[in-house]
């Protein structure tokens, strides 16, 4: 493993910001840590970079314990979320910084700066002042600066956090291609699931300093491990139910569950796509409370007579009006039995 965290724990005051985190990143792997604000993901990067001492546990790079190795000797790159470009240096000076610290000659530096600025799509920008750059350009310079010394591990803290949406979507694709081409090992953190899913080979969801789930984007998306992960990914159709055989009894009526689910009480997730609208006299009777336009579909918020609300995804033309009464049926394929949240 290129990077291993074992039992990594950081406390601020009495609170554990990182709580016994174990994480492995293999060479050439792109891992995205996903979590809400305050889940400890930035602290995780800082701990690996050597900017944040651990209270317990170990950080290993290439199998070597990094205890006592200061930040500047770890050979990892970190791209800060607001870039932190050096304001008194020009673009070239920023990109060359890490090379200069490693004693590269002027010629080597110039060549590498040129190479990297080409790579991030800013050819010939070496002489520009940092202050004259747009947000997207700053982001590219920060990336070039982090990549220049060829770090064995590149870490990105909310790499696209401050950019506007369209630019973000474009850059995600560019980054993904770039990392693939360079074979860079990447550990990124973000609170944006779209960014994480687009960028990562593997997604690690964090909650309150612990790892809630780890898996490929598809795995995490299809089978959220628990209610927290499901809700964090934007799924709100979560309901308690009692499983008996192939169905579960819930406030929304009987829901089909995957074969092999043990009997007993469970938390169930119904993906909006699995909520099918039918005629009002069939299935669960609901009133349409609200509709939100989502571009490719309409999210219909449904209020059953005496249960919590649920959401359905409808094609544009089929969406009922607010106030309509509809019936609801559920599709077994879109129902997930969630685990108990860790720590709860």
């Amino acid at each position, binding site marked *: 493993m290129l990077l291993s965290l074992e039992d990594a724990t950081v406390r601020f005051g009495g609170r554990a910001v990182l709580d016994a985190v174990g994480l492995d990143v293999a060479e050439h792997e792109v891992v995205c840590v996903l979590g809400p604000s305050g889940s400890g993901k*930035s602290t995780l990067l800082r701990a690996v970079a050597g900017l944040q001492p651990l209270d317990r546990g170990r950080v290993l790079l290439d199998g070597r314990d990094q205890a006592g190795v200061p930040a500047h000797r770890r050979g990892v790159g970190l791209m800060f979320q607001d870039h932190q470009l*050096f304001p008194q240096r020009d673009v070239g000076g920023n990109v060359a*910084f890490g090379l200069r610290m490693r004693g590269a000659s002027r010629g080597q530096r110039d060549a590498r700066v040129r190479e990297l600025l080409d790579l991030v799509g800013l050819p010939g920008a070496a002489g520009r002042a940092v202050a004259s750059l747009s947000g997207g350009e700053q982001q590219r310079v920060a990336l070039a600066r982090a990549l220049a010394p060829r770090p064995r591990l590149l870490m990105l803290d909310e790499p696209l956090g401050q950019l506007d949406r369209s630019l973000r979507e474009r850059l995600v694709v560019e980054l993904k291609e770039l990392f693939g081409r360079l074979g860079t090992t990447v550990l990124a953190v973000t609170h944006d699931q779209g960014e994480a899913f687009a960028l990562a080979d593997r997604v690690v969801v964090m909650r309150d300093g612990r790892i809630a789930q780890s898996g490929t984007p598809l795995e995490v998306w299809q089978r959220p491990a628990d209610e927290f992960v499901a809700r964090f990914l934007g799924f709100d159709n979560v309901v308690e139910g009692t499983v008996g055989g192939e169905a579960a009894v819930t406030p929304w009526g009987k829901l089909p569950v995957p074969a092999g689910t043990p009997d007993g009480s469970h938390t169930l997730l119904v993906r909006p796509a699995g909520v099918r609208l039918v005629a009002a006299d069939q299935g669960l009777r609901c009133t349409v409370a609200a509709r939100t336009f989502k571009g490719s579909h309409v999210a219909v918020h449904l209020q059953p007579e005496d249960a919590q609300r649920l959401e359905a995804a409808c094609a544009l033309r089929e969406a009922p009006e607010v106030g309509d009464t509809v019936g609801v049926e559920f599709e077994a394929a879109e129902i997930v039995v969630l685990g108990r949240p860790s720590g709860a």
Partner: protein
Amino acid sequence: MDLARTEVTPRKGAGKRKDAGKRKNGGERKGAAKSVAARLGLLAVPVAFFAVFFAYPVAAIVARGLKADGVWQLGRITDVLGDAGIRHVLWFTTWQALASTALTLLIALPGAYVFARLDFPGKHVLRAVVTVPFVLPTVVVGTAFLALVGRGGLLDELWGLRLDTTVWAILLAHVFFNYAVVVRTVGGLWSQLDPRQEEAARMLGASRIAAWRKVTLPALGPAVAAAALMVFLFTFTSFGVVQILGGPTFSTLEVEIYRQTSEIFDLSTAAVLTLIQFAAVGAVLAVHAWTVRRRETALRLVDASTTARRPRGAGQWALLAGVLVSVALLLVLPPAVLVQRSFDAPDFGYYRALTSDDSGIFLVAPIEAIGNSLEYAVVATVIAVVIGGLAAAALTRRDAGRLVRGFDALLMLPLGVSAVTVGFGFLIALDEPPLDLRSSWILVPLAQALVGVPFVVRTMLPVLRAVDERLREAAAVLGASPWRVWREVDLPMVRRALLIAAGFAFAVSLGEFGATVFIARPDHPTLPVAVARLLGRAGELNYGQAMALSTILMVVCAVALLVLERLRGDRTGEF
């Protein structure tokens, strides 16, 4: 930009990380311990400097005064305090400092408002003009007021009015001196307060006055308090001004210490007075440190250039006019009269007299004092910048701990501790191997640097603290060692502050009088010492030469400051 920060922890965690560092075991503790060690290492040089050239001499002279046959004679303290004359000095020192502070605030606060909130032609020039007095040597200020309100002064000639026999001359000179402290400290903050806060209060139904009272005044309060304390500190320990303007009637603690030491040779009384002054100054500094911390509370600050407006309405115009008149009368007139007096002899007679060495007062021509002063001041500046710079670098991190914060406050002490004591302490304490410096020229710059260091630290610290910690971290992750981080990130950003600090240290060193008067060698007088000695002699020629030398000193200081002013631009600052 700042919104994104709420999520990461470094800011909020800064104080807490230290706690984490204290806990035992854990692999990476070593790194944290090392950085603490590095910071303490940086502090070692300033600490050693202050121990040897400040604490030791002061302690030595106090011990010399209060110890007989190896036994502390603490009874002397009550003896001295029981003396009616000394009690009178204490009383006068305190009330003149309070009166000077009140008067300075009264006159300078409108000035602070005008500089902060009003925009008018010539503002930048005027701001510089207002600041010049602060870096003028006390001796020059005393001389200038002598030329204005003293015997044969301008007012005496015009209306037969003399103030040098009254306390007013001292009070006005103190206002002259400290006007800039109030304008800088209060006005600097005022100009950066977001006017929209007041507007928000008015939208919520507050009248203009109520909004000012409820929103602006509380925000300014700590700055006013800090300015008042600084003025109190400077006037409480006033020496040169009172020495020249006080005559035999008025004497502050510092002047009395000088008298007891150099005229009566009563070291034990001087030692007791030194301790009293030390205690008083320590108390004032403690309160000052507290207000500084209060001032660091989160205020919404905006770019100063956006808050000033053209005056509107009769009230604002009247205020502006009043401030301009008070500046003209109080700050411009005295030095102008000084210059005029210095030319008040045919063929630049006073200036030409400076070049001759047959006056009998000096072993050398007075004009040589210029060269001496410049040489000493340059060396003192270098020392002050190195010592102060190291201290500032070590104190940069806010979470540096109580010990380091305490040192921060200690660095201010030389501003308040009797310079006379320090000077005399140098002579007494630094006279045997391995530190036999009594006859060395370095003694003078060392003493002057002591006063310069607080200015260097005060100027550089806010700038260093404003450098985003994550910029340093970015450099570290890119492979920069702590030393290179400082060189590559901090230094370029503080270069300007460093120059400003150097300028202040230079001006302060040039004007240092209390300590230098003891340790400057007779054949190597500095400008302030030469001025004081000329004033101490009777005769019009000596008086005129004092005016001429003062003018030269003033010009050198003013030039240094105006250069600074170009470098500084609009910034909040204490000095």
